């Protein structure tokens, strides 16, 4: 069981700010592919991965990172702080 969080327009496209999913995906990229097959909302949100950033347990990471032991996966667009 892993907790998925979505922010900004990813949250809007997927329709929820967070959800728990069961997954055996080995990497972030695998998890995204799995989600895209589940529902068109995910396919829309993850259509262009160059516009998506990922954090694992609140640390910036990348799509090739393994998910073993990860409890919280967050997806969001490039940050616009400051």
């Amino acid at each position: 069981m892993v907790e998925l969080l979505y922010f900004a327009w990813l949250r809007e496209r997927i329709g929820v700010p967070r959800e728990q999913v069961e997954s055996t995906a080995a990497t972030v990229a695998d998890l995204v592919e799995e989600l895209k097959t589940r529902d068109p909302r995910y396919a829309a949100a993850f259509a262009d991965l160059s516009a998506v950033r990922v954090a694992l347990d609140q640390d910036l990471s990348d799509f090739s990172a393994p998910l073993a032991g990860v409890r919280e996966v967050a997806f969001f667009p490039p940050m616009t702080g400051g």
Partner: protein
Amino acid sequence: MRIAVQEAAFDPSAELAGFGQGRADVGAVVSFTGLVRDDTGQMQALEIEHYPGMTERAIAALVEQAITRWALADAVVIHRYGRLEIGAPIMMVATAARHRQAAFEAAEFLMDYLKSRAPFWKKEITATGAAWVEAKESDEAALSRW
């Protein structure tokens, strides 16, 4: 050192009261305040979303890095989220160091990283709708100098 991620408005000048003063090892204090700008005349407000938990972690890591790299005597980062009015302060950083170059560089470093590496997302609210602010390539490019 003080880090605050908050919905409430803040007064940058009040936050600077006494900052870096009254000690023999500080010769330079730099502050930066970012404010809500409206280039189109159409904006009603700015809405800022953030990632509670990660935001504080990411900012603390940045500030620790700046303190070590520029031997800062003190540092402040305050960043708001939620709905902000035009002309209101969004965030501020302040740095205190022996010399002016260190204070300036550390403040610019913090700003450049807060722009692109702290989990905040801005949305411009107009009378007819709302649009997420897109990240600028120039902001990402600015990181390469550090």
